[in-house]
């Protein structure tokens, strides 16, 4: 194996010393990816605008009836679900806080259910415990196929919750299941770009819900406060 193929892979021998070329390439790549991300965000929002408006109207009605929002996902999507729950429950800037919780937040509950009944049931069993027919389930997935999310969405649908799914690629099982009232599909093959657009769809859902509530809210005096 004495063949000299080093010229094919100029940096494989670790001879590279000048970082400037790499840094310039990285910066160009970052700008390309950021442009790709915002283009996908724009096309996703444009494609979902009507659905977001419809979903937000129903979210507002359910919150007005005392409903709660449960968000869930796996991995990075669990954290995006948590960001959405925090946005609803603790919005900055004087917006109305709304009852929302992230079902991956409690380590005791998640590990107890995962260990005792299986990971596919970690979210559905919590919905069985907590949810009522006026509540809302929001599932974040990039593939649209996660078994724990599909099981939870089936449970949510059975219980009369408003069911919302965020998926990527072609929507996967979420899009084809018939279990969802609203399914927002980010048409991309990149997990990263999908998550960046899903975050914005979640933000838009929240913003439109706030607008709906602001329009329907009577003056504060005498208004029933539900938390």
């Amino acid at each position, binding site marked *: 194996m004495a063949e000299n193929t080093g010229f094919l892979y100029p*940096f*494989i*021998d*670790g*001879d*590279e*010393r000048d*970082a400037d070329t*790499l*840094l*310039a*390439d*990285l*910066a*160009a*790549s*970052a*700008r390309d*990816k*950021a*442009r790709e*991300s*915002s283009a996908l*965000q*724009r096309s996703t*929002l444009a494609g979902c605008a009507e659905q977001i408006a419809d979903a937000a109207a129903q979210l507002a009605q359910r919150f007005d009836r005392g409903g709660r929002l449960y968000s869930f996902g796996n*991995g*990075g999507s*669990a*954290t*995006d679900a*948590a*960001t*959405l729950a*925090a*946005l609803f429950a603790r*919005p*900055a*800037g*004087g*917006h109305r806080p709304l009852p929302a919780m*992230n079902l991956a937040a409690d380590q005791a509950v998640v590990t107890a259910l995962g260990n005792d009944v299986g990971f596919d049931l970690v979210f559905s069993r919590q919905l069985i415990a907590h949810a009522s027919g006026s509540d809302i389930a929001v599932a974040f997935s*990039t593939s649209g196929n996660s078994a724990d999310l599909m099981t939870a969405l089936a449970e949510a649908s059975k219980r009369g919750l408003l069911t919302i799914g965020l998926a990527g690629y072609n929507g996967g099982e979420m899009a084809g299941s018939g279990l969802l009232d609203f399914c927002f599909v980010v048409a991309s093959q990149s*997990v*990263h770009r999908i*998550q*960046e*657009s*899903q*975050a*914005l769809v*979640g*933000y*838009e859902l*929240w*913003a*439109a819900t*706030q*607008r709906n509530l*602001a329009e329907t809210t009577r003056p504060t005096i005498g208004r029933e406060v539900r938390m």
Partner: protein
Amino acid sequence: MSVDSPETIGITADILDHGLAADLSAASLALARRFHHGATMWCLAPQWEPHAHHMAVEFVHPVIVGKRALPAVALTAPDLLAQTRIAARSGDIVIAVAGAADIAVRDIMRRAPAWGALSVWIGSGARPEAGCADHVLWIDDDDPLAPATGRFVLMYHLLWELTHVCFEHPGLLGEPPGDCGQQVCVTCSDEGRLAEVLASPAGAFAQARVRTADGEESVDVTLVSPVAAGDLLLVHAGSAITRVGQ
């Protein structure tokens, strides 16, 4: 009370200008060098904890099959300074998502050089002052809800993607981490190292035990006494020569 439309939350703008792209590139290479030398990355986001968890899972369990898993951990204790101080070892990375006014994060970033940790600060709105962290990755958007629109997610996704590109350039990873913002002695222009006092000296003329990027040591504090645990000092040739302000 108005809620912004997509146009006003910045997705139509050029969300990553040349300056931020250059900052991201430099931060990525610094991260790759640290990881190459065995760093753990400690992830903080006191106001938006999910971002700390997302950063950690991004590096620990990459979405692209075959990319190496890197040690990254979210820190979420109520006393973030105490938790980070005990977690971070020399050579590690501390990365935070936080506004410039976040007192705990400011304090942690200020102390990171004494722990030998590379500091990276991601945020939006008013910028923190220059030099407050080794790498500042900032979005100039005053909307307090910007953290919930996916723009920080984009930022640490890019940081992850670029860091892994750097691993394909082993020749650029070999330099030992030396980019932790050391200051210089004003009288002799020689090296000055940031030190954090571990405990008050036992007596008036006793040395103080301090922590620096090089580990623990005892230093003369005659010039700056009295000192107490947690004080930051600039150490030169075995003596603390000045305090480093709040």
